[in-house]
């Protein structure tokens, strides 16, 4: 396949609907295009992509969206859904792994869903990203002190205590949450729950 004439289509910026970004006259998933590429290179072409999907707050919409991921063989690493400032709109923040080409195709398939208003790829965005974790750790009297020290280093909160357990509440970037989780493993984590990543773009720019 020759790609020698790509230059002739680079320059144009066609009219766009406000729910779409266009690339070469073709709608694409929106990329705000600022900041450093927040791309994790996985094996082969696989990358972790963080995307926001703005959807109609309607029954069935989660099923529609997750079906697109499943059909294309994308594994969802994390998914967080909530209402937005507009109660008729929900925001899904999704972290998925997959190769770039398939990811682009999947983004277009998502855009085809009538209930999907906007899809934003945050690969190049300057983001604030946070996760919340609740971690229940086995903690007898002897262990308690050390756990409290670890929590304080990570600025995590202790939210529940019993004879044998402590519950730690940790908010932070994914790698921070991973780190405290690793530190607490040696005390035996009894139960753990994480919200999955949520993100907003820094500054006045809309996510």
């Amino acid at each position: 396949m020759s790609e020698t004439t790509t230059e002739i289509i680079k320059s144009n910026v066609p009219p766009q609907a406000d729910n779409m970004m266009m690339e070469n006259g073709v709608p694409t998933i929106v990329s705000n295009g600022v900041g450093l590429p927040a791309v994790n290179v996985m094996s082969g072409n696989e990358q972790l992509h963080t995307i926001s999907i703005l959807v109609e707050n309607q029954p069935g919409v989660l099923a529609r969206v997750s079906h697109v991921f499943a059909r294309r063989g994308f594994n969802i690493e994390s998914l967080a859904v909530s209402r937005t400032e507009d109660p008729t709109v929900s925001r899904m923040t999704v972290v998925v792994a997959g190769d770039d080409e398939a990811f682009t195709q999947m983004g277009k398939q998502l855009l085809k869903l009538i209930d999907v208003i906007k899809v934003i790829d945050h690969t190049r965005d300057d983001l604030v990203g946070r996760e919340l974790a609740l971690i229940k750790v086995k903690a007898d009297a002897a262990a308690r002190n050390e756990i409290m020290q670890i929590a304080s280093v990570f600025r995590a909160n202790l939210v529940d205590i019993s004879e044998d357990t402590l519950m730690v509440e940790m908010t932070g970037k994914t790698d921070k949450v991973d780190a405290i989780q690793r530190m607490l493993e040696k005390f035996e984590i009894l139960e753990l729950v994480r919200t999955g990543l949520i993100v907003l773009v820094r500054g006045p720019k809309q996510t």
Partner: protein
Amino acid sequence: MDGAEALLESLKREGVDVLFGISGGAILPIYDALGKQEDIWSILTRHEQGAGHMAEGYARATGRVGVCMGTSGPGATNLVTAITDAFMDSTPIVVITGQVATPNIGKDAFQECDTFGITMPVVKHNYLVRRSSDIPRIVKEAFYLARTGRPGPVLIDIPKDISAGPLDQFLYPETVNLRGYNPNLPAATEQIKAAAKLIAEARQPVLYVGNGINAAGAADELLKLAEKIDAPVTTTLLGRGGFPAGHQLSLDMLGMHGTAYANWAVHEADLLIALGARFDDRVTGDPKAFAPNAKVIHVDIDSAELGKIRFAQVPILGDVKSVINQLTEVVAPKKHTQWLERIDEWKKAAPLTYENTGTGKLKPQQVIAELNKATDGEAIVTTDVGQHQMWAAQYYNPKRTRSFITSGGLGTMGYGYPAAIGAKVGCIDREVWCITGDGSFQMNLQELATGVLYDIPVKIALLNNSSLGMVRQWQKMFYERRWSGIDLSRCPDFAKLAEAYSATGVTITEADEVADAIREAQKNPGTVLLNFMTDAEEDVFPMIPGGKTVHDMVLDSSNKAVPIPGSNGNGLDGATATATASTYTSEWTDDINAGKKKI
């Protein structure tokens, strides 16, 4: 007014005057309302799948949205094949299903199934109605979604308490408000310019034309463009009729069973202009070897199609009709004398032919050719799926758009006859033929009752080869003649079967009876089934085996791959014979006759 009445009123506002379906418990309120009015003709079919394909045939022939209905549970699941078929071939239909009453949903109630969930992956959009007052808005949206952008099926699932429930007032919305859906993007002028530049530079262009031309009603526009730039045109199976067959620039169909000259032209092309076609694998074979020397201009209304299979130097998102108009305006007239001469040589070297063995056996191709003659290519033809479908595509030359109606993407056996009924209902003044096979016809033949009862006179040309012919061909070519699960030789007597339904049935065994039989059928005002007993060993050629390239194309039963005449050898060295040399040599009929086993 109740929900059911609001539904019918909304359908009328959308211009619906006919629908196809079957009643049942959960959809009773809607059928009750249908019985109380006369504006919408409710056609009772014999199977919901038939209703679905009728709606499809209606939509494909008319360009309007077809409507079908079924009750909850089995009614809905019977519709799923037709819905999927419409999804694959971008056919605009609205499907209405009954659902159990809202309080019973999710409790395994009688005839409950999750229609909304089951159909989610095979619809453009679907709705589960939760308030009677939502019905007008939802119907408005459903029709808008079905017919605009890339057309497709939209399903509305209506619980019984919602169709029976009251509406305070009926307000039909003037507009739709769907912020996630914007089908009317004008094509970028820069892209049009870029395309025009490629067209100006091209020396061996080919227009590769698909279903989008028929969907957009752009056949006239295409003809103008093709003539202005003097470029040959090949159509996909679903693009048949989008360009007049027999035109000097026509290459007929491309792909697996396309003409040799179409496939050769595509292979040698330096520019491929894809118009409303999606590079299906039956067209491309191995996509890496498809049109290897060509730059691509790809026009499609669905952005997900652009770049999906084939990188396009110039992707153009937009309605193909307006894009063609824009293009025609800016391109300079061209002549491609040399290129077209070369193609003419190919046409002479490898025309569509079949072996007339002189054994007196009735050749299926001859039947279609006679049908083409008798109708002058002016009829609407629907087909089922199999060898007969391919011969129909090769030997029936539709002169008009929306006149070749077939199941391409899903390849649904049982599509043809109900689709013909739907087409006839939509185009009552036109002659409608269904070309079918003995296998396919038996998948929805119950609709003979519908056709006869409502006096919807469709003519049926059944190519009876006593087998699942297309499968037999693959077993012959790729499975060393190990026949398995293909024998239909204990078929019913189809002529008698037609008579049992009060239609006319005729069996034809001799080649010289074909023309007369067709003429008689044309004169007959009712439903006629012509049961042609055709040569059961006949196979479809040319053929490019699945996933292969033009170099693997075989033209006849010798199964020898042929090189491209006059080619500069570009990539030709790898030409290989494809069919496995078989250790078995018997034909399947010999095996049957030898009473080997039930196959």
